[in-house]
């Protein structure tokens, strides 16, 4: 018995997509395998590590805990969509480079999406707020100190208006 397929329409990083997937296809697998957007990483598949975080209609969600069929018609932003409009690094991405906010880079996409959403609502955090903002994502490499610095740096870049928000 082959599985029935369902048609799902998604806007991912501004581009409309139409995929036919089984009901149980995780959004993370749909993004990675069906759409080839491998920037979204899967670290635990039970919603704890946050590496797979994407923005669903602008709000951070764990894409490993959602079925692709469940987000039909919605707007998804992945780390690939956090670039600057011209294709250069977006403000949060640039901040991670500036502050050595990553080492192996596996958890980084989940931080970039999380911080992107956070700074839209909180453009001027202090260090304690920045630390709290990343409190739901695991990183095994950096000890978080430079990620906290990256949040503050990204806020600075955004405020300076050097980059346009994605």
């Amino acid at each position, binding site marked *: 018995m082959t599985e029935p397929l369902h048609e799902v329409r998604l806007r991912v990083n501004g581009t409309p997509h139409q995929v036919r997937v089984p009901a149980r296809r995780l959004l993370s697998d749909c993004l990675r395998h069906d759409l080839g957007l491998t*920037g*979204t*990483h899967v*670290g635990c598949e039970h919603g704890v590590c946050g590496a797979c975080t994407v923005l669903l209609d602008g709000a951070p969600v764990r894409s490993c805990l959602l079925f692709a069929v469940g987000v039909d018609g919605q707007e998804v932003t992945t780390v690939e969509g956090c670039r600057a409009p011209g294709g250069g690094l977006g403000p949060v991405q640039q901040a991670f480079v500036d502050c*050595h906010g990553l080492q192996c880079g*596996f958890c980084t996409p989940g931080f970039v999406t999380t911080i992107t959403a956070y700074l839209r609502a909180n453009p001027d955090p202090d260090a304690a707020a920045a630390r709290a903002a990343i409190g*739901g994502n695991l990183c095994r*490499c950096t*000890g978080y100190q430079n990620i906290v610095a990256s949040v503050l740096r990204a806020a600075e870049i955004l405020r300076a208006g050097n980059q346009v928000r994605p």
Partner: protein
Amino acid sequence: MTAARIFGEPIPRREDPRLVSGAGRYTDDIDATALAVAFVRSPSAHASIVDIDVSGALDVPGLHAVYTYEDLTGRLAEPLPLLIPHPALTAPRTAYPLARDVVRHVGEPVVMVVAADRYAAEDACDRIEVTYRALPPVVGLAAAVRAEHAVHADVPDNVAAHLVQEVGDAPAAIAAALYRLRLDLTIERSASMPLEGRGVHARWDEVDRSLRVYSSTQTSTSLRFALAAKLELPVDRVEVVTPDVGGGFGVKIVHPWPEELLVPWAAIRLGRPVTWIEDRREHFVSSAHERGQAHEVEVGFDGEGRILGLSVRFQHDNGAYTPYGIIVPVITSTQLLGPYKPGAYRVEFTSLYTNTVQVTPYRGAGRPQGVFVMERTLDAIADHCGLSRVDVRERNFITPDEMPYDHHMTFQDGRPLVYDSGDYPALLAKLKKLVDWDAFPALREQARARGRRVGIGLACYVEGTGVGPYEGAHVRVETSGAVVVSTGLTTQGQGHETVFAQIAAQELGVSLEDVTVVTGDTRRFAYAVGTFASRAAVMSGNAVALAARKVRGKALRIAADALEADPGDLDISAGVVRVKGSPGAEIPLRTVAVLANPLRYAFDAEAQRATQFAVGGGTDTPPVAEDDEPGLEATDYYSPIRSTFASGMHAAVVETDPDTAEITILRYAVVHDCGTLINPRIVEGQIHGGVAQGVGGALYERIEYDEHGQLVNASFMDFLMPYASEVPHIETDHQQTPSPLNPLGIKGAGEAGVIPVAAALASAIEDAEGLTGTGVRITDMPIGPARLWELRARWADEDSGRDGR
């Protein structure tokens, strides 16, 4: 513009732009169309396999193959290799790629399923019925020692290894000492736990009968040789590529994993690309753990706190198999000495089998346990003598004038344990200043007066880094001026693309932007050892420097000919060879690269300048001299006589809640000496990450087996790794004591941060709890609020017991 500004500078990482934008390429990103693998793994810690019935799986849509041990042939059907034999490892045992007759831990692979995707593969796994007959499990060191049951039927005492090292007569020195103490010190299991698990992708080319394997490994070159051996393929038909790797921390140095053999084997049999990506539960139950050890210490010392004799006996839980030998307890037994000279020293360990996941190095590799033992002992001595903890350490330090210092022991590389350089008193002075050590007692009293419990602790370590046998590098200047550096060891986030480029740019006199670095690809560099033991910067860094120096020498020789100058009068900067003091007398390195390769055919403008008619020269000598080679490139290797020893000291200020026993780290200070710094920003990042893992090991992380051998916290919900809220801001300061053993004077930095954290926090918690002078100590890690709560209750009971007597 000068190259000297590149080496030692905190240059941003060159790998970051692709990694922050989702353009990294990890093993699971390589081929979404490959067949997917899932495994039926043992649900039981110890059992005989009675029957495997795969019939229910055969009609699962998308199924391609099901394999059990019976399907394995040739050398693949033999046990996995014992990677590091040791004379003391008298009963080594390794697993089969798929279980044969008996399973010895939960998670051991029993059946391999290959299907169109992972969903289908797991469907098939669910329908495979394996019948087991339970055997009694051996869980924990106590059960292993009792040996009522054996993990391996032919090892009835469960003892894999037993080793004694002695310097002087420790029992006599202890017996003769003015004071003696005994301590029992225990550290529980944790695990590397990289955010990316293991993963393998293999593709077989039937036309030229070659295999390419991508693996999330810490050693591509050794995996290649292992694959060739186990799959019985010529080595030159096997390529191993390490793509971006999402963290390693030790666990990915083990090879070949069963999956690393079985996935390529299936790819060959099926003639299709095959991928296996480990899920998180698989990583918990089927990769490797570390840290679990129980130690008994006897120490004899004088009234000044000087150690006269030290005897340590410990038991090491090596899990079900010993593929990586006994490196971890060997390192504990040698590195617990730290920056100290203990007088006479005796260390004895027993490495024991249990029905749990195998134990192999996790960042620090036995050192966190050793440092915990030594530093807890020094704190106990200070307390016993009524001395300050820093004074006791200082009195036992090896002093700078005693370097190089020979401990007269054998280190993990089989070489003498000789410290090459270091200045421990200066490091301690830096630490005291950084953390305001001398001002702390007043702060502690002020806090106490307000009902708060705060305490300070410190811990010191010495880390042997940069173990051999060698690493190599190839450096080539292309006719475009691009410099391509290749080295065989792998990268898991350490920034090698940046630091090796810094070294090459510095040595060659080119700009950083002209240099690209390739690591971990056997197509590019076939001879290497791997990335572990804080060795990459020391080993490959020096190899890159040596190869670049050769290239520089050749470039100067060719340029000297072209410029009709003496090579000694030439210098290279910004990619141009110049005659010193003669403005305008210069030739770009890219043109030197053209001249280095005399050509017959002019396929582009640069090549045209290298054809024989263009180059000219004498007609009575060959275009390539007898002792020369074409191309502006060179390979060289760095092979040290022994390890180089980095050092550092940590101090922690903690607060313990009088009611809830919650433990909060208020300050954390690190001073660190890894010799000459290549890139301080990257070194600091390594320290931060190490400390975070140390905090996890000290306060949160505990791999928990029940008495049946079930790993009961095998998820990120239950195995508590630190989030940002648990890791303190880390203050750092550096000291640079160059290593005399290598051309760049560098020492390793990768593991350092994790090593003394448990010891420093134990010391600080003990201080916060006001245990000084009570004889009560923190003796086991991790310690969380629940554990501290229990201890407080026990201490209170003991107090009232004493009062009642």
